[in-house]
């Protein structure tokens, strides 16, 4: 059995206790999307301020476990100031790290393993241990799926 340290890295506990980019933005100008984990009740809302193709700012509110909250916080730091193309790349390598990946509706999805360097992931690497706890993968990917939702809603 994998140990708790695999799951609850220091960085995770830090982001859980001190979530970055917490809050809301008025919509508009922000766009937003709400994400649920239907099976456990975790909920979060992602607010994005786009400047052309760049995520100029991001705020997140909601409630959830340490993994879903810290993953949201880590994500907010990782995507802020990035272009949508860069974000898409980050999403891909994040999901690849989560290997048993799930899509927006929480189902398993075949994910092509892609090549990436740990450096690209930055602090996100702290979530690597989640893979050993399959039920928690949904917690870690909730914020990312909600981000995708926000961008898709805007596109359509």
């Amino acid at each position, binding site marked *: *059995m994998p*140990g*708790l340290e695999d*799951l*609850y890295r220091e960085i995770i*506990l830090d982001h859980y206790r001190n979530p970055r980019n917490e809050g809301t933005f008025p919509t508009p100008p922000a766009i937003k999307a709400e994400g649920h984990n239907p*099976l*456990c*009740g*975790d*909920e979060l809302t992602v607010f994005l301020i786009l400047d052309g193709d760049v995520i100029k700012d991001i705020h997140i509110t909601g*409630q*959830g*476990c*340490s*993994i879903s*909250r810290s993953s949201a916080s880590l994500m907010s730091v990782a995507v802020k100031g990035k272009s949508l193309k860069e974000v898409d790349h980050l999403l891909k390598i994040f999901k690849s790290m989560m290997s048993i990946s799930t899509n927006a509706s929480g189902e398993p999805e075949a994910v092509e393993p892609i090549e990436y360097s740990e450096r690209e992931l930055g602090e996100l690497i702290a979530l690597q241990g989640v893979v050993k*706890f399959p039920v*928690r993968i949904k*917690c870690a990917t909730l914020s990312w799926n909600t981000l995708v939702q926000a961008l898709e809603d805007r596109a359509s």
Partner: protein
Amino acid sequence: MERMNTPTTATPLNVTEIRKDFPIFTHQNGKALYFLDSAASSQKPLSVLQAMDNYYSTTHANVHRGVYQIAEHATELYEGARVKIGRFIGAPNPARETIFTKNATESINLLSTCLTRGRLKKGDVVVLTEMEHHANLVPWLIAKEQFGIELRYIKVDSEGYLALDNIDEILSGAKVLSVTLASNVLGTLPPVAHLAELAHKHGAIVIGDGAQFVPHMVTDVTDLGLDFLAFTGHKMLGPTGIGVLWGKSELLEALPPFMGGGDMITDVTLDGFTPNELPWKFEAGTPPIAEAIGLGAAVDYLQDLGMQNIREHEIKLLSYAFERLESNFGKNIVIHGPRNIQDRGGVISFDFRDIHPHDISQILDQSGVCVRAGHHCAKPLMRHLGIAATARASFHIYNEPADVDALVDALGKAQAFFG
């Protein structure tokens, strides 16, 4: 009911012996399993698995239609299980009034569907409570959306009891009261016999959701004053895939059928059909035959122990758990629901510091302690409590003080970990 479920001469359960009957406790390769999630689903004794295996290995055939011996025997076993299970809840006519479904959820959907096809009119009022499981909410929300019934809710007070001060107002003009016999979150045991009496005065029929009650206490539908009772096999030592709906014959007879198919008809033409007699009218298609037989064996097992003894056992565990949790963690733990142990079933939902229930459950799992974390399929109640999730420990016959000790120790670790 109160009286029956708090006997003075209970025989203590021999948990050491009981645990030997449950293969899961001996299959853990020496790892301890502190299973505190029976409110989600109970474990199964060997006798239940054997009853099903025996059935499949010696006499499986489809029921009701075969003239040959194994089919005849299968029918006897299936119908025999029905009578046994009906008697277990005190059904006056067990052979006619005990309907097999796939789970408690189907039992309630059957009622919400058939009542709106038959007895209820648009705008009729159905009364529920704020502490219902989704199984006793969503079917009625669908009936509201599809058919146009109205819903009223009995509120939950700050101590986790139903708020009954304005009950006559709520019941006034109501056609149905559907209420849980035991809350799966708060443990609360609503005063169902009293509510039923009131509801009947107002001309409403009374449905009990017994999913968390029937597995743990003496159940007598007449004493409880019920018109219908829904419960589920897998929470009472029985297999998955089977639930039960009991109803008074006159009421069941007056309802139109639920699903259509084989066995629920006496005649079918290309233009219409004539429904079968009770109970088969409500059992379309091949029923859960082995599951009914397995549930029959589960009822035997429970009855051998004695439902009053089981209740007494759980009360002792509850008292011990309250004592240990509160003396160890004081203000760091908030236990939801009534403080009076006699007023609650064997579930303890709690908030622990500000640690999220998922994290608690994860850390507890590390020590082999299984508790549930989440909204427990009672989102409206969670909103009322102002939280998104709780952790919940729940008991059954195979639990013992050691399970509570393991829970307390593991919570200690969580506290240390999240600091």
